[in-house]
């Protein structure tokens, strides 16, 4: 078991290293530079700027330097904002994470309960309407859902603020907007997973033993039935927690998302790298957790 963890952790580290290398050189070798937008910069100022960020060095040297700093937890300076990347992430990431937590809770609560309920009421009106709603959830993108929620709950009903940041109320609408698509996918996956188990011979055995329906669902079906959902949850939680550029834009959330588009536009080298690293680490970490959870759920999986 510990060997498995060590192996997986090592492969995660290697993957992150490859991602860092690849994105470093892609961003660097692409046309354009952080200072190309300000056309009238005199050459000596430009040189000073380049020297400030270490961009006057050969690219291999810059890379080694970047890695050295990274190992000490230093993500470098933003070329657009008068701040270090660490500061920008430290300020914006917690907001995105809070929003993501609301979204995850919403998605799990709605998704799993609707999926389980639809599965045990298979082929009833409940099942059909839940699945139709889930399909709507998948078909309505967040940039449609967000404005409509604002229209209804902020501008018409005055229940929640239409955007901004500050209190818990500010997180509700963006959280729901972000989480709904995932809730819909989770509901479908959960239903399908549960149905697959409900059809198995061992559930028939459980019925033949005279066990209660609710007990069978809880004890015999849930564990195996949730495995597809868990698989999906790894990447899903990662992308909810890291937020969505669109949702944060719609609700004017001062999270990390808008910085990314901005950074990509402005060739803000270190900020792009910083955000990519944060996101990838999150995703790999979540997948790692999911793998561990598998072993707990399915005793047939061996770690070796």
């Amino acid at each position, binding site marked *: 078991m510990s060997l498995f963890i060590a192996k997986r952790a090592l492969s995660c580290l290697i993957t992150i290293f490859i991602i860092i290398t690849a994105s470093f050189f892609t961003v660097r070798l692409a046309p354009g530079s952080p200072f190309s937008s300000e056309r009238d910069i005199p050459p000596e100022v430009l040189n000073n700027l380049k020297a400030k960020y270490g961009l006057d060095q050969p690219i291999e040297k810059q890379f080694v330097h970047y890695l050295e700093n990274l190992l000490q937890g230093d993500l470098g300076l933003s070329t657009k904002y008068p701040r270090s990347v660490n500061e920008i992430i430290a300020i914006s990431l917690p907001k995105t994470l809070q929003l993501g937590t609301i979204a995850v809770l919403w998605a799990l609560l709605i998704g799993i309960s609707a999926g389980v309920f639809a599965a045990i009421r298979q082929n009833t009106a409940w099942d059909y309407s839940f699945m139709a709603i889930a399909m709507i959830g998948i078909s309505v993108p967040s940039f449609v859902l967000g404005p409509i929620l604002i229209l209804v709950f902020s501008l018409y009903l005055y229940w929640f603020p239409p955007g901004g940041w500050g209190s818990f109320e500010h997180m509700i609408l963006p959280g729901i907007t972000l989480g709904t698509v995932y809730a819909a996918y989770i509901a479908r996956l959960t239903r399908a997973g549960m149905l697959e188990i409900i059809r198995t011979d*061992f559930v028939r*055995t459980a019925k033949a033993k005279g066990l209660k329906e609710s*007990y069978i669902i809880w004890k015999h079906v849930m564990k195996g039935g949730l495995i597809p959902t868990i698989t999906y949850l790894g990447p899903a939680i990662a992308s909810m927690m890291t937020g969505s550029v669109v949702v944060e834009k719609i609700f004017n959330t001062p999270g990390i998302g808008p910085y990314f588009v901005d950074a990509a536009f402005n060739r803000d080298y270190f900020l792009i790298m910083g955000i990519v690293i944060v996101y990838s680490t999150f995703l790999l970490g979540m997948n790692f957790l999911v793998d561990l959870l598998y072993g707990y759920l399915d*005793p047939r999986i061996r770690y070796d």
Partner: protein
Amino acid sequence: MTPLISVKGLKTYFRTDEGLVKACDNISFDVNPGEILGVVGESGSGKTVASMSILRLIAEPPGYFDGGEIIFEGKNLLKLSMKEMREIRGNKISMIFQDPMTALNPFLKIETQLTEVLVQHKSMSLDKARAKCIEMLKKVGVSLPERRLDMYPHQLSGGLRQRMMIAMALLCRPSLLIADEPTTALDVTIQAQILELIKSINQEFNTSVILISHDLGVVAGMTNRLVVMYAGKIVESGLTEDIFNKPSHPYTKALLNSIPRIDKEQKQLDPIPGLPPSLSSIPTGCPFHPRCAYAVEKCKTTYPETAFITSDHISKCWEVSRL
């Protein structure tokens, strides 16, 4: 002798895309206390559906009971509520299935799967239930029962899994055990052991057994009486001995001719020509007529009346006299 369970005119139908499937069409049989009844037929003959109907394990819909009754302890099982039915399942009537690999839950420890029966039906504490399970595992010939309880199904061999299933079925001392092809998925050497175990359980606990099999060889030495099914109907029933000595339906006869026997001289084995019919398109008249060597014009149109060979040996064939 009053039968332990009495199935009368059972009709279990399924509504499917291909039309109405009459999986059990007017099935009647009794099981007497302490006896082993064999139910024989090819796959698709409705024998599994018949046994699942007793425990009401048929999915409704698409399945439904079009008629008939199943009398057990003076009550019609088809009329019981789901709650009353639960009190019978696993408690008074137990079932073991064909494939012990898939019939046990791979996600749960054996202990959970055994003790939950006692917790449900006898309201036992877990400790007491565990002790009881160990006792039962010893009875069904499982060595090191304490250690096996902590295992998961995939850590056990096929034979051991089937023993676990049998132990699970017997925990509440049911009066009827339904064994649906209990040895089909097992190695030949293990098959004999499991059959021996079922027989000894029948004698030791006086549990009646319905033994379902497609294999006449399996039921031959095990059962007191036999029911032969074909295309959802019972075509012949009687004492096992009588049926083997004087098969009175062309299908039974053909079945017997298609397996090797040591008690009779055989020149060759004769496979039955053709294939069993699809239950959604059963031939008119006697369903066996397209494959029957004795079929006459009447067989194609009219379902045979009951012919009595002896008082309890019956056959559904127009041409009994020619057999």
